[in-house]
Each structure stands twice: as structure tokens, then as C-alpha cells.
């Protein structure tokens, strides 16, 4: 079984923001929510790099751990999804997430932030695959159609890649050997290694949320 991951090759990202736009368009994301965004580090100084960032679908997701209503689950492919029927919009996942992935439709309404929204790896939610309800709540389910996330699929420089983690790592390593440099897979240490507490919430484990 594949372990789905994103890998952003910062040496290739040209900050065109096409991944951001593609994501918004594909899932009909409302104004104010950004499932994906491009961040430029060291802007205008030597060593400047741009990185496209969204939910990294961690091995041991902090969002899932701190959620008071236990609305997160992980698919057999390692994709971290959540149920908007269970979410109460408390904002805890946003405090815990290292990548700032969870988004809320309202900023302040006396504590009402609406249901959390985040990158689904184009894999929808707990509703039946490609149903209207699923599309309205979570956007398109490309994975169920045998397609990979659109942001990575249409990246013009192939900086952003999505797919099985081992394959991505192999491609990335080959690139680094050929060109002779590389700054590593951004976010991978945090998402898959550093805070990985084993199989507490590992891929393949039946999720509790959304049932």
C-alpha cells in the first residue's frame, strides 16, 4: 500500500502560485480559505527559496491528537482526513498543526469559526466517493478516480510532487545527485520523522472519526 506524501523541491519552485490557484479552482474553495499556499523564505536575499505548503498528512498528526471531538481519521494510504459533521470549529488543530494547514471560514464571530477546512490530498471525506455531499463539503475526490492531487499534477517545474513517499524520495534523490545540490524535502522531518511516535495513528489504522 502506498504511503501518500507531498514533496516540494525548493530548488525548483518558482513561486508561480499555480498550485494555489489550481487547488482553489478544483475544490471550489471559498474566499479566505487557503488549503495550499506558497511561502518565500529569505525573500530578496541570497538563499531565497519558495516552498509550496499544505497539510503534510503527518504520521502522527497533532491535529488528530488534540481534536476534542475526535473528528480526524487516516486512510489506508496515509491521507489525514476529517469529518465536517463532527468538527465543532474550536481551532485546537490550528494551534497544534506545525504547518498552519487547518483553515476556518470565519475569523471571528464570537468564537464561531465554522467547520475546519484543510487539504484532503484530493481525497474527499467520509461521505461516499464523488458524491455531491462529499464535493460540497470537501471538494473533488481525485484519488478515488485514480488521479493524484491537482496541485502537484499541474506544477510546471515539477517542484511539487504528490504520491507514494518512497517514489517521491527516489525521484528527489536522483535530482539532487544529478544537479549536485538540494536543501532537503521541506517539512518531512516534522511530518514523518521527528515527531513520529510509531503507529499511534499510522496508515491503515481504521479511523474513528466520520463513522
Amino acid at each position: 500500500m502506498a504511503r501518500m506524501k507531498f514533496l516540494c523541491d525548493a530548488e525548483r519552485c518558482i513561486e508561480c502560485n499555480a498550485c494555489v490557484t489550481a487547488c482553489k479552482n478544483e475544490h471550489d474553495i471559498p474566499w479566505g480559505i487557503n488549503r495550499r499556499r506558497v511561502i518565500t523564505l529569505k525573500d530578496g536575499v541570497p538563499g531565497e527559496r519558495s516552498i509550496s505548503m499544505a497539510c503534510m498528512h503527518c504520521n502522527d498528526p497533532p491535529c488528530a491528537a488534540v481534536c476534542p471531538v475526535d473528528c480526524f481519521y487516516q486512510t489506508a494510504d496515509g491521507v489525514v482526513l476529517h469529518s465536517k459533521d463532527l468538527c465543532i470549529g474550536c481551532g485546537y488543530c490550528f494551534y497544534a498543526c506545525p504547518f498552519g494547514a487547518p483553515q476556518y471560514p470565519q475569523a471571528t464571530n464570537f468564537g464561531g469559526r465554522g467547520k475546519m477546512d484543510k487539504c484532503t490530498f484530493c481525497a474527499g471525506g467520509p461521505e461516499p466517493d464523488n458524491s455531491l455531499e462529499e464535493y460540497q463539503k470537501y471538494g473533488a475526490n481525485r484519488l478515488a478516480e485514480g488521479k493524484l492531487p491537482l496541485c502537484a499534477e499541474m506544477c510546471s517545474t515539477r517542484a511539487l510532487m504528490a504520491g507514494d513517499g518512497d517514489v517521491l524520495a527516489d525521484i528527489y534523490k536522483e535530482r539532487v545527485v544529478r544537479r549536485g545540490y538540494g536543501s532537503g524535502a521541506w517539512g518531512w522531518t516534522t511530518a514523518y520523522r521527528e515527531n513520529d511516535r510509531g503507529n499511534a495513528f499510522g496508515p491503515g489504522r481504521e479511523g474513528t472519526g466520520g463513522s
Partner: protein
Amino acid sequence: MTKLLRPLLVLFVLLLAAPAVQAQFYQTPGPTSPTSKDEVQLYQTPDGKLSGRISIPDAKLGVLVQPEGREWREFRMVWLKIIAGALILGPIAALGLFYLIRGTIRIQGGRSGRQVPRFGGMDRFAHWTTAVSFLLMALTGLILTFGRMLLIPLIGHPNFTMLAEASKYMHNFFSVPFVLGLLMIFVLWVRDNIPEKADLVWLKTLGGVLSKSGEHPEAGRFNAGQKGVFWAVVFGGFALSLTGFLLMMPFAVTGIGGMQILHVAHGVVAALMIALIIGHIYIGTIGMEGAFDAMGSGVVDENWAKDHHRRWYEEQLRNGQADPDGRLRHHAAE
């Protein structure tokens, strides 16, 4: 002619310098470059918080990695549960044990049947507004903290989400009556809660709780223990309100880091307040005979007043609020 040549000359120099600049600004293959896939460093060493520039309007998304979330997760998942659990179960166990040993503190000489007005309508309104909103917020806060662990296995996910969502709204909306009640309490009672010399005696003997004869040190309208509760409620309540309102308005004043700290402060102060209020409820109900009347009917038994607030009772006598005959005057306490 020179005017036209100068920019061209500059451009020429820049073009010549470009490869050097390129080499300086960008990584290039060098002697340390990996020669095989095994040498490629896939995982970066984590280097703390990373933020940069972002072209979308949502500036707070410029943060690439915030490792502080991990410490907050540790607090939320481990420490908060230990702190809140200990501060709730600890006092309940201690008071249960105390009750078994000491029992209800009786009025010396029993009830006289004569009554002294103690808290008027305004006092009681302020007290119960604060009390009811505090209890509801404590309960709903505990549901959000412990519900996943204790309630989801019992009632299931969909039911718990309904409960948690209702809890969240109640927790937010009851903050308003809580703050209003808190302000009223402060205005109404601050005068009688200024620390004084007699409080030291009261504190030394712990209010006479350990004395076998049931002797109580002298006290005015409020004894040192009550003053302690008053100031703890004023400062604790203020801290809870401030942190709570800031958490309710995300990004209005602080960012993620600030909200993590606010949540920790809110949780710890709330746990301390719950422990304090457990003690307060105990002494106001089963812990002491006649104490509940003060906030219930607003009038207390004369012997209770003599026992616990002799100086206040004597003041009431002088002011004609209570009289030796014990007939209740028909005007408000204050």
C-alpha cells in the same frame, strides 16, 4: 553620447558579473555534492520556527513551520488533564475525608430562631449570576477537555459532537453574565474585603476550624478566608475573562503562539478556580450549618452571625439592622 553609453556600460558589466553573482546567490555543485542517492540528505535538520513572505492576503499563513505546536499538544493532551484532574479530584477527596472526620460545623447553641439580614437582593443577584455562569462554564470547559476520553466511548461521536458544540457556545456566551456578575461583586463587596489586622489571627487559627471547643476568631462582615476567596475570584475571574475573550477573537490581538500561551493560562487558572470553588461550595452547604442561608434567603441566624462574624453582628446591632429582641426589621440589609 556619454549619457547613452553609461547605462549600456553598466549593463555590460552586470552581464559579465552575472555568473559570479549566480554562484554566490545560488547553490552550485561543489566538492561536497552527493555522488550517489544514498548520500542525499532527504530530511532537514529542524531549525525552529520558519516564516517568510506570502503573496496572498492572509499574512498569518507566512509561517512555514511552527514547532511550538508540539509543546502545546503536550500540554493539552497530558499536563492539562493531570493538572485539572488533580485539582478537581484532590479537593473532593480531601473535603470528603474532612467531612468524615469533622462533620458539619454546627452553630454553637443551635439556631436561635432570630434572624439578621446579611445579603440583600443585589448581593445575591450578583453572587448567583457569577456562580451559575461559572459553574456552566466549568462544566462545558471540562466537557471539551475530558469529553473525548470519557464521553465518546459512552455516547458515540455524533452525540458528543452535538454536546461539544453546545458546550462551546455556552462556554462563550456565559462569559458575558460572568463578567457582569464579577464586576458587581467587586463593586458591592470590595469595601468589606480590605485586609486588616484581625485577618492575621483568623489565618493563624485557620478560622478556628481545628479548635475543639468550636471557638471562632472574631471577624467583620467577611473573615480572612472569605476575603481570600473574594480576591481569588476577582483576580482569577479577571484572568479567565481576559484570556478567554482574547481566545474568542483569534488574530485580533495575538497570533498562534499567543493563543497557545493564552490557552495554557486559561486552563491552569480555570483548574485552580474550580478547586477553590469546590471548597467554597462545600463550606457554603454541607460543611457549615446555617451558612447557605446568607446567599439563599439572605438572612442568617443570629447565633450563626455571633459565631462567625461577631464584629459584623455587633455593627448590625448598633445600626439597628438586628436588634436584641431579634425581630427582623423590614428594610433591606444595605
